[in-house]
């Protein structure tokens, strides 16, 4: 509290004034004087309690102070003036007029015009001008200011802020000159000091406000960035964090403030980051990528930068910038999954191999602990587990066992639900799902979240994939979309594999039955030969050794028996030949068809000579074929041409070939009996004969053999003929085989 010295108390007293304040003091009564001082002290006490928070507060406070001031020392005008820039002028920021109880502001005074006054302000603690018009410090104001406003006395106290005069508190007495008592001077000085304090306070508030605004701005910027930005001090505690931290760690910025990194990041993430933190605190800039645990479970793939901050070569802390690459990483991962699945499907021989590899690849690339493949069995309308892969470091016996032993109906359990709904399903936490019959085993093995994906071929669900994790996971639509696509791809693959298997099975069965037939034909004809040979042998023995005992009829019978046996023998021989014909691809080689034709003619020499037939051929090409079969083919066709000659007409056979669109068309033309068009196709059937035995001998197998040979050579055989004029047999063979 300020002590008011009581010197000059009685100096220059004037009784003529009606001024109450003057009266108070001039009465010289001690109790009155003490009362006046008590009022002053009360006023100062009141002023000291005025709180200033804002600029508006300050203006109100000044108004209040000026009013209290005026009422305490009873002066007509109390005003506060402040210097503008560079102290060249002074502006009235507030004026209180006691008689009018009115505030105003705005007057300006130029320092250069009132140099004595301003000089005095700088030098004196207070200017107490009893007669303002005469006082050398204030008489400069006389004409322009004092006289017009009828001001007689002035009591001006400079306002100091930080050792500098920033303004002045003016008390202007109107009426007869007034003598300022020392107590009043002290009071004015004290009020001026309060104002200085208030101004100072306001300055500081403004600076603080500016700082706060700057910080706000910075926060706004950093909060809007999708990266983690923070400042860590030497003790590894957060001094600044942006809003991204709230999202990541689920606690408010205020809660993070001052916390140790370990407490915010969690032990695992902190352990990973620790060596880098230490590096940063040694003053190195650090940049690294790592997979860090995320508060919602799962992992985040991040790029982290630490930039140390120095003060006098001392590391004060470091700035942290964490860039979340998880999405980009996920996209990369998904591409990897797609690539892996495609590769596995292309390379795997069996479905089982492929599935086990796919489950493993998806688990490893996307971080699931266990993957299962379920297959729909339509015969019992159930879905059951066929294939499981799990992370070998994790105990999964119970879940593995129950999954392999259980069967689900449509809608039952996750596989049944996927099957029923034909859509991928995500389960964040199946401990909260009442349609999860394997729940207790899953919990026993620490599984929490999972997804199920249908394997579809068209609209038909062939099976389902399941993946589980030990964490509860937020639904990942991108992953579900990818898995749905993989489900379709797998469905196509499985369908294709099944079709292939079916075709393979049919082919196998067909080959088996074909082989069986061939063997049957071979064995049958072979076994038929033996008894026939015995019959034939004894018939000949009989006719040799007992001929003389037979009569004419018996002789005739014997002849028929021998003929029958011969015919049967021929049939068996041809049947053997036919059944032995096999696709001889491995025996194909380039052969000269001219030589083949000559060889066939040579083989038919006896028959040709007997019938005096004329066989001619043009130049024939070289082709890839089986030599033996080609000779057989020509032999049968030329043989037929000679055999079916017209009675009395000399047999002529001509063989030629021409190339048509990559195929050689061979023709064997004769001038024989010809064939009716309705038989053009049927003559190539086995045992099909058009003529009686008495007219033309034969077994009906010859052309069937030709057809089979041509089929083995990927060609075609057909006939054109005019009855009674002749026939032309055509067959085609590929130019390049």
């Amino acid at each position: 509290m300020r002590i008011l010295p009581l010197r000059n108390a009685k100096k220059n007293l004037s009784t003529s004034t009606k001024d109450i304040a003057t009266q108070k003091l001039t009465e010289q009564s001690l109790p009155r004087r003490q009362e006046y001082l008590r009022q002053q002290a009360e006023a100062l006490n009141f002023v000291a309690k005025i709180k200033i928070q804002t600029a508006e507060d300050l203006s109100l406070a000044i108004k209040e102070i000026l009013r209290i001031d005026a009422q305490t020392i009873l002066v007509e005008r109390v005003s506060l003036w402040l210097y503008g820039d560079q102290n060249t002028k002074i502006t009235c920021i507030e004026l209180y007029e006691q008689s009018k109880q009115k505030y105003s502001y705005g007057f300006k005074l130029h320092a250069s015009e009132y140099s004595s006054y301003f000089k005095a302000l700088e030098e004196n603690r207070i200017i107490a001008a009893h007669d303002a018009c005469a006082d050398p410090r204030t008489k400069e104001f006389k004409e322009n200011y004092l006289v017009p406003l009828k001001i007689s006395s002035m009591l001006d106290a400079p306002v100091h802020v930080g050792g500098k005069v920033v303004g002045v508190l003016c008390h202007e007495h109107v009426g007869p000159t007034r003598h300022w008592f020392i107590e009043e001077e002290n009071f004015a000085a004290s009020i001026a000091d309060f104002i200085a304090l208030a101004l100072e306070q306001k300055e500081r508030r403004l600076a603080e406000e500016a700082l706060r605004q700057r910080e706000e701005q910075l926060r706004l910027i950093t909060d809007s960035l999708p990266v983690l930005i923070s400042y860590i001090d030497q003790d590894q505690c957060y001094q600044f964090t942006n809003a991204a931290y709230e999202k990541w760690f689920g606690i408010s910025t205020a809660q993070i403030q001052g916390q140790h990194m370990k407490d915010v990041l969690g032990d695992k993430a902190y352990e990973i980051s620790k060596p880098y933190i230490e590096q940063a605190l040694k003053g190195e800039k650090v940049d690294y990528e790592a997979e860090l645990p995320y508060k919602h479970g799962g992992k985040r793939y991040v790029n982290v930068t630490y930039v140390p901050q120095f003060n006098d070569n001392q590391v004060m802390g470091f700035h942290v910038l964490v860039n979340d690459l998880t999405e980009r990483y996920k996209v990369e991962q998904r591409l990897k999954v797609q690539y892996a699945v495609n590769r596995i499907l292309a390379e795997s021989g069996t479905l089982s191999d492929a599935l086990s590899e796919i489950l493993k690849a998806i688990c490893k690339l996307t971080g699931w602990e266990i993957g299962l493949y379920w297959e729909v069995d339509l015969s019992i309308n159930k879905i059951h587990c066929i294939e499981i892969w799990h992370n070998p470091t994790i105990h999964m016996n119970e879940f593995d066992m129950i999954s392999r032993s259980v069967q689900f109906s449509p809608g039952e359990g996750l596989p049944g639900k996927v099957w029923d709904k034909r859509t991928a399903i995500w389960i964040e936490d199946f401990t909260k799902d009442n349609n999860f019959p394997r729940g207790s085993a899953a919990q026993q093995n620490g599984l929490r979240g999972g997804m199920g994906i249908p394997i579809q071929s068209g609209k038909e669900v062939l099976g389902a994939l399941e993946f589980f994790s030990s964490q509860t996971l937020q639904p990942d639509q991108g992953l579900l979309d990818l898995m749905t696509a993989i489900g379709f791809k797998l469905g196509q693959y499985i369908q294709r594999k099944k079709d292939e298997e079916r075709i393979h099975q049919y082919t196998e069965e067909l080959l088996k039955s074909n082989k069986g037939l061939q063997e049957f034909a071979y064995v049958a004809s072979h076994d038929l030969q033996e008894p026939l040979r015995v019959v034939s042998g004894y018939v000949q023995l009989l006719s040799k050794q007992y001929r003389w005992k037979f009569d004419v009829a018996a002789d005739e019978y014997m002849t028929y028996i021998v003929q029958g046996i011969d015919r049967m023998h021929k049939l068996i021989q041809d049947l053997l030949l036919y059944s032995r014909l096999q696709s001889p691809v491995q025996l194909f080689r380039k052969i000269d068809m001219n030589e083949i034709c000559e060889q066939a003619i040579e083989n038919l020499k006896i028959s040709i000579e007997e019938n005096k037939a004329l066989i001619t051929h043009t130049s024939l090409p070289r082709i890839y074929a089986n030599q033996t079969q080609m000779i057989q083919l020509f032999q049968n066709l030329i043989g037929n041409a000679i055999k079916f000659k017209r009675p009395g007409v000399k047999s002529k056979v001509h063989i030629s070939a021409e190339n048509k669109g990559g195929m050689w068309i061979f023709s064997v033309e004769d001038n024989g009996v010809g064939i009716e068009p309705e038989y053009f196709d049927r003559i190539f059937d086995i045992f099909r004969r058009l003529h009686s035995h008495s007219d033309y001998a034969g077994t009906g197998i010859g052309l069937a053999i030709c057809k089979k040979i041509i089929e083995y050579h990927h060609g075609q055989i057909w006939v054109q003929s005019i009855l009674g004029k002749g026939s032309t047999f055509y067959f085609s063979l590929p130019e390049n085989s």
Partner: protein
Amino acid sequence: MDQQKVNILLIEDNPAEARLTQEALKVWRTPLNVDVVNTGDDALNFLRKLENYKYAKRPDLIFLDLNLPKKHGREILAEIKSDPELKSIPVLILTVSESEDDVYMGYQLGTSGYIKKTFNFDHFIEMMRKIEDYWLSVVILPRNLNGLFE
């Protein structure tokens, strides 16, 4: 028995076939003695003089049919050719089979000739004549040691 006679063992299960072969063998000018056995076991017993064949004569030439019940002709051939006592006897395969496999296996197992029985009986007789020419005059058979052991 006349020592000049040639001993033939015919291994053939079908009596009709056996008789037919015997009939054809009548064209031989060389005196011969033909013994017929129906099964592989009988054949081996005959050759080893076992059971009912204690007094059997060691043949100079064996005619072997392939298609036999129980023991197949191939097995009989293999046993004869792996028995040091018997392997010196020439074995001629006489069969209707013209399967290349049978021919190959026959020679592989040590047959002295693979003969396909012709369908025509006259041709069969002609074939027998040629066999006599070859085996009894062109080539020299190992000496039959029957006499020495008796």
